[in-house]
Structures are given as C-alpha cells and as structure tokens.
C-alpha cells in the first residue's frame, strides 16, 4: 500500500500525540472489573483439564480412556484420535501435535489427552483414570548434545533442503547471511577474539496463564473467548485444525495479562473447541503455572561461536558468528532472526553468520520479544566489549566508530535508510550516567540492539455517533496501552479532544483479518490504519458540508475539528464542527464512518543502546543492578509514558534473562523449576528505577513517524549486564544466567 512518505518530511505540530492522557481501560484495571481470560464464564459450563506427559520422550503405545469416560460427571475425553485427519501445512500440523500429541510425546509436559467434567475435582480424578502405555525413549535437552553423533532423534527426515547431507538429523534448517571475505577481514585485525557464548531458555513469564472458554453448536457455529495476542490467528488456526469454516467461528479476545510473544499461537483453544463439540456444552480451560512453564512458549536456548577481528584503533575488520538455537521439539527456532540481526548495528565490510535450527526434547519454542535477537546480541556485544577494553578503548566510542548509518550495507543485506543507532550512542555518551563514578566491585556495561519490526494485515473501523463522539474498532488485543494510542491518533487527526474517542478491540466477526499483536506492529500499523480511517471520515464530512453550503467538495477543508470554507470560491460560511455535522448525518446521507483495511509494510527498523551499572559481591557472586538507562529511537512517541514502559519492561526482562532466569532440566529430561519460586523473574527489590530516554528519528513509512518500540528493548540488556558484571568481577562472563554460584566460580577460577 502507498504510504504517506511526505508528511513526515515536515516537522508535524501535534496537539494530542506526544501527551500523556489517562488510558481508557485504566479504571477497569485498577478496580478489578477488567475481564481477563480466566474471568469469563458461561451457564452450564464444564471444566476442561489436560493430561500431560511425565516423560521427556516416549512412544505412546496406547491410551485407554474408558475408565475416565465411565466416571460420573465426566462428559468427554479427547485424544489426538478425535481430531479430524486433515491435510495441514507443516506449521499447523506441528501446532496441532503440540496441542495434542500423536504417536510420540516429545517433552515433559506434552499434552496427550483432555477431559471435560462437571467440576475441577472430577476432571482431576478423570485425568488419573486415563491409562497410557508409554515406551520411554532416549532424550536430549541440550542444544549442543542434540547434534552429537548418536544423539536421540526426535523426527527422522524432517530437515529442509538447506541442511547438508550427513548432518545431525536433529538439525532442521541452516541459514547463512553476510557479505565480503571473512578470512581476509580477520587477517587485517590486530587481534582476533574467538569465544563461545551460551544462553539458557527463558519463558516470557506473563503473569496470566493461558485460558479460554469454548462453545459449539451442532450446526458448527462456535464461539471462543480467550486471552491471546491475536484472536484472528486463533480463529484461523483452530478452524484449520478442526475443519471449521473461519466465518463460523467467532473469537473474542479477553483482556490479556501479558504475552511478550508467548500468546502468538494456540495451546488450549483447539482442545477446548473439540471438548465443546463433543459435549455440546461450554468448556472452560485454564492452565496452571506449572503447565505454562512446562508446555508453553519458552524461547530458544543458544550456543554461539564467535570470531571477530579489530584493529587497535577499534575498527572491526571482520566478524563471524555460528549460532545454534534449539527451539524445542519442533522446527522453527528463531535462529534465522538471530543470524540476520546479530551484526545489524555495525558497518562491516566482511561479515558472516551461520544459523542452525535444532530440535530437542523441550517444549516448542514460541516467539519472545524480538525473537532470536537477544542471544545473538549477547555474543556480539560481549565480544566487541572485550576487544575494546582489551585495547584500552572506550566501548561506546568503538561502537560509534563502527556504527551503521544511512547508506551502510546491513549485515543482513539491504542498505539502511535513515536510522537512529548513532543518535542513541551519542546521547548515551553525553548522558551523566556515562561519566558517573563507580565504586569498588562495580562495573559499567553498554550494549546496542537492533530489531526489524513489521506491519501486516490491519483493519480499523471508525464511526461517528449522532452526538459527535467517535468510536474506533480495531482487531488487536491491547497489551500495553494501545487503545489509548489509537484514541490519541484518531483525536489528533480529527482535531477533537482525546476524551471524545473510545477505542475497542472488536471480535473476529466485526472486522476483517488482523495480524497478531506482534512484531512491534500495533502502534505503527493499527495507528496508520486509524489515521487513514479518520482521514476517510473527514473527507466524508467535508463532502456533507459542501452539500449543505452548496459549494464544491474541494472548497471545504478540515481543521481544528471542524469543516471550514477554503479557497477563493468557497464563500463565507461559519465553520461546522464534527458534532454539528454528526447531528445532521441522517439528513445528509446517513451515518458517517471511515475505515481502513490494509497491509502496511515498511515498518522501519529500530535501534537502542543500554547502559547499566552493577555491583558484584565477591564473597557470594550475587549481582546487584545499581543503575540502568535505556536510549531508544521511537520514531515518534505517541504516548511517551507507555513508550517508557516498553523500554523499562524490556530492559527488566533482559535483566532477568541475564541474571536469574533459566529452564533447568534434570538428567531425566524433566523440567525441575516449573514454578515462579524456582523460575525466578525480577521482583521490585531487585531493581533500581530504569531511566528511559526516548529519541525521535521519524519513520518515513508512517504519517506521524511512528516506529515499533516493543521489542528492541529486550535485545541489548543481556550483553549490557554481562559487560557490566564482567568488569565488576574482573572476569569475562560468557554464559547466562550469571547466577551467584556461576559468578563466584568464575571469580575463583580466574
């Protein structure tokens, strides 16, 4: 679609955009009225529960559900056999297999049966009454062990055409990016650093477990309420799996209690629909926290080998990284994104990355905020830091010397348009944080990060009510204040107060297809569609007023919330406000609305620089975060408080990834820390305030210059914290998480 490239060339004067109004769903959320996934009930509903594998890897020889089915209060039991044999594409077939295992269970917690019963008590008893005959198989959970000769094989013959013959059967795909001659580049360096880096799998850690309520009639019409980042995706995926017509399945998104990428797929929803189909009763399913951790969306763990050359002046002469990501039991780890984004912040003549997508006996990885990029940035930014400090150079200055700019050929291929990396680095260098003194056992780290962002299918319908208020319907769940941002952009465009606009998230029956709330796309793409919908409504209102005044349409212009006569032939007419035009809409042609259905592309990439001070306790290895500052380009911050919130939240998730969080598997292949006590995410007392510095380098692809901001903020913190801890501890930390025992061991071994 054509984008309004020109408007951003002029500096726009905003009245609403850039202010900090109260969010429309605020009162509901501070009073407990907001309804999240598990808060919805239906008359006569049953409780659905899932039976999960106690093995890391096993063949299912048989499942006997007869005893469970015979129990009083049990209304249905489903297994994979209940799902229709359909010709699904590979990705959807994997989603189904992950929701309900077929011949094999592939990880601890893999779903293989589900019951619907009149109470939770009975459902629990019914799960125990299901008899499963397993043939346990050897398992592997480590990314490097999975590609050793003789490692247990998850899927035979599923590698795609990119994998060389003779490679481990657990390798699903291979990617290679870059340009130049890497050996020639490294040969020009004064020092070539070779080091390997490891990160553990982490979970998105949303506080709201997955939940849904399904009902289906004998005519195939179905309704589903669920917490998701994309109810249109839920509709399409469930319809495909169950063989329903998409238009017959209406999905309504509840309020969503966090997602971070983890709610961009389905887990319970097809199962709940199948139980509802079998019982002809509404079925509600809610996961426990342990189910969330065992069977939903962790990100990949990674193992990265790096070779990077630098001159003593700090110029990177060549950079090579080989990345191995395990994405759990199915193909599709985000190693492709890691391999593309690893060196994206730098202007490199010779650069190459190789990515290997590897399967292991772990839950199927789901997207997690800038999927694949944080682990790659951890390796790259750690290596650059080590080289810079080794030469006695300022690590920010080294990054500036190598920074990608407009006209740089990106490591993943294209030439950059105007980008904001250098601006974030300069702002960081000038910030008082950079020159603040440090005490003993303290260290300061910096790191840069990059993310792509995208647009995708989007629909917005904007309606003017008879009294001149405005409603905006959009199709993307509001995960962090986006309804406020949409109302602001509509108000800005229409020239009316923010309070006159109310934005709602519509169900799948009310709008056309909408891409998931992901890829940092909502403020960009839904915002763009909102602006276009408002412009369509304005054009319609000008047309109506032209009729009233008896002049040409193009002699009417819209400004400050009203239609004004414009041009030499317009005559003199008092302006008509939006409310005045709305009041006579029935007389001038009927209700007034504007809508936009589009697939906005050209989202514009985004960069950030993070700076952090840490203190390491040399006796215990414990790390304290003393100070943290985020510098990120937002293009244009529509609601700066929620932009800051994205920066602060991403940084904090990255701090957790760096210091505490990790999936821990035993020798038995079972997850040992499936709870918030042992899978410890950062708490309030772990952290200082997170300073957020917003830079605004307008995105030429958006009428107001907006860029996505949600994901980039999790890319730099792993490395920034590692660089700070390495300085404080006096030893390079190349493996995450930097838990106290690991830091202590590193100090003692150094």
């Amino acid at each position, binding site marked *: 679609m054509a984008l309004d490239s020109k408007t951003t060339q002029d500096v726009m004067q905003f009245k609403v955009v850039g202010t900090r109004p109260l969010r429309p769903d605020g009162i509901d959320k*501070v009073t407990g009225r*907001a309804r999240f996934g598990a808060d919805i009930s239906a008359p006569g509903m049953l409780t659905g529960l899932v039976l999960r594998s106690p093995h890391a890897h096993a063949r299912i020889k048989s499942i006997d559900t007869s005893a469970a089915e015979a129990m009083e209060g049990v209304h249905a039991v489903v297994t994979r056999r209940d799902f229709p044999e359909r010709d699904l594409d590979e990705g959807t077939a994997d989603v189904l297999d992950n929701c309900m295992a077929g011949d094999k269970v592939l990880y601890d917690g893999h779903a293989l049966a589900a019951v619907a019963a009149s109470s939770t008590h009975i459902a629990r008893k019914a799960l125990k009454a299901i008899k499963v005959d397993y043939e346990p198989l050897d398992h592997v959970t480590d990314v490097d062990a999975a590609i050793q000769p003789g490692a247990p094989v998850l899927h035979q013959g599923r590698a795609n055409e990119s994998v060389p013959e003779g490679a481990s059967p657990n390798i699903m795909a291979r990617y290679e990016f870059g340009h130049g001659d890497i050996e020639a580049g490294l040969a020009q360096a004064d020092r070539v650093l070779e080091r390997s880096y490891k990160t553990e799998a982490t979970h998105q850690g949303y506080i709201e477990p997955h939940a849904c309520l399904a009902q289906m009639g004998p005519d195939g019409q179905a309704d589903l309420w669920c917490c998701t980042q994309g109810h249109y995706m839920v509709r399409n995926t469930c319809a495909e799996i169950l063989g329903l017509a998409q238009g017959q399945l209406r999905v309504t998104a509840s309020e969503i209690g966090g997602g*971070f990428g983890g709610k961009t797929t389905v887990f319970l929803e097809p199962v709940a629909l199948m139980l509802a189909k079998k019982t002809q009763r509404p079925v509600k399913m809610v996961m426990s926290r342990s189910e969330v951790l065992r069977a939903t969306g962790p990100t990949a763990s990674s193992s990265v080998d790096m070779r990077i050359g630098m001159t003593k002046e700090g110029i990177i002469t060549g950079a090579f990284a080989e990345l191995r990501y395990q994405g759990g039991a199915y193909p599709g780890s985000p190693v492709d994104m890691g391999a593309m984004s690893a060196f994206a912040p730098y202007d490199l003549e010779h650069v190459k990355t190789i990515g290997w997508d590897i399967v292991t006996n772990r839950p199927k990885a789901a997207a997690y905020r800038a999927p694949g990029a944080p682990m790659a940035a951890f390796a790259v930014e750690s290596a650059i830091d080590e080289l810079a400090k080794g030469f006695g150079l300022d690590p920010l200055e080294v990054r500036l010397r190598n920074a990608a700019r407009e006209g740089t050929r990106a490591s993943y291929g294209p030439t950059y348009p105007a980008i904001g990396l250098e601006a974030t680095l300069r702002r960081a260098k000038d910030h008082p944080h950079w020159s603040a003194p440090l005490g003993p056992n303290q260290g300061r780290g910096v790191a840069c990060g990059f993310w792509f962002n995208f647009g995708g299918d989007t629909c917005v319908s904007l309606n003017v009510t008879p009294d001149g208020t405005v409603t905006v319907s959009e199709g993307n769940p509001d995960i962090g204040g986006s309804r406020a941002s949409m109302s602001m952009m509509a108000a800005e465009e229409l020239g009316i107060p923010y309070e006159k606009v109310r934005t709602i998230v519509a169900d799948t029956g009310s709008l056309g297809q909408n891409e998931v709330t992901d890829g940092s796309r909502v403020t960009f793409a839904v915002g763009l569609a909102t602006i276009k919908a408002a412009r369509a409504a304005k054009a319609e209102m000008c047309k109506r007023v032209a009729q009233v005044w008896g002049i040409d349409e193009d002699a009417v212009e819209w400004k400050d919330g009203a239609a004004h006569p414009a041009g030499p032939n317009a005559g003199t007419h008092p302006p008509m406000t939006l409310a005045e035009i709305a009041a006579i809409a029935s007389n001038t042609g009927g209700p007034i609305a504007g809508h936009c259905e589009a697939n906005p592309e050209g989202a514009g990439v985004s960069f950030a620089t993070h700076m952090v001070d840490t203190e390491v306790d040399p006796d215990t290895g414990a790390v304290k975060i003393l100070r943290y500052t985020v510098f990120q380009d937002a293009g244009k911050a529509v609601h700066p408080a929620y932009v800051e919130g994205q920066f602060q939240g991403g940084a904090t998730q990255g701090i957790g990834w760096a210091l505490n969080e990790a999936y821990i598997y035993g020798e038995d292949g079972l997850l040992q820390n499936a709870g918030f006590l042992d899978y410890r995410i950062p708490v309030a007392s772990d952290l200082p305030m997170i300073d957020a510095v917003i830079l605004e380098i307008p995105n030429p692809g958006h009428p107001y210059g907006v860029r996505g901001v949600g994901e980039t903020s999790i890319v730099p913190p792993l490395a920034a914290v590692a660089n700070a801890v390495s300085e404080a501890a006096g030893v390079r930390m190349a493996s995450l998480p930097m838990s106290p025992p690991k830091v202590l061991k590193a100090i003692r071994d150094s």
Partner: protein
Amino acid sequence: MSKIHVTTKINGDPVEYLCEPDETLLDVLRDQLGLTGSKEGCGTGDCGACTVTLDGRLVCSCLVLGAEAEGAEVGTIEGMAEAEALHPLQQKFIEHAALQCGICTPGILVAAKSLLERNPDPTEEETRYWLAGNLCRCTGYDKIIRAVMDAAADMRKAS
C-alpha cells in the same frame, strides 16, 4: 465430601457460602462469588496476583482455604474504591501509567494499600521490599514504585 458452611464479611458485606474443605479462598472468591478481580497467576503464593486482606493481614488467597474465612473480614480489590471515588493509589496508578497489561494490578494495589496503612511515608527501598512478593512482568516496576510513592505523598498531605 460434604461442604463447609462459611459466614464471613467481604468488603464490608455479609456473605455466606458453602465450600469444599480443600477449596481455596481464591477459588471461592472467583468461582462462587464472582469476585474475579483477584487473579490466579501461580496458585503457589509466588506471584501475589491473588493478594487480599484477611482481618487486615495481607495474604495470598490461593494459600488460604475458603473455610478459613469463617468469621473473618476479607478485603479484595473490588472493595478498594468507594463508589465513584477511586482510592488515591488507584488514581495514581492510572496517572503514572503504572500498569501495562493490568493482570498484576489488583494484587499490587491491595498490597500497596496495606503498606501505606502501616507506613504512610515509606522510602523507595521499603516500597520495593514490601512489593517484592507481587510479580509484574510488563513494567519493570519503575512506574509502580513512583505511583505508590506519589499516592503516599498525596495521602499524607490530605490527612
């Protein structure tokens, strides 16, 4: 298994219910009484999303049995605002953008109110440690802490 009859007071209203001996107060509140403002994030007392007060004491309602509310006074998020008037903490949370998804917000508000009742002038560190049992995954806590401190300042001025 026969049910237990419980007479209690919730947000000032007299309430009676029957519960299973092993049913949690959280399940009673949510599933029987329709008070879904208290959230279940973990069911093991680690996340604080189900925080309520029981006779003025801050508890995770997922770790309290429904039967234990007999004769007690329970305070939930639903009782925090008085009619149209939001509690200053609720107002400050909206003003400071101290919530993104909002799932942890009810528990954090109940916990923060309890803090300010005990300590009207908490330091940042005291606030952070008091709220350390309430997980938030969206905000990084920055705006939450600011909102609590700002509400405390306003409440001190008003009293």
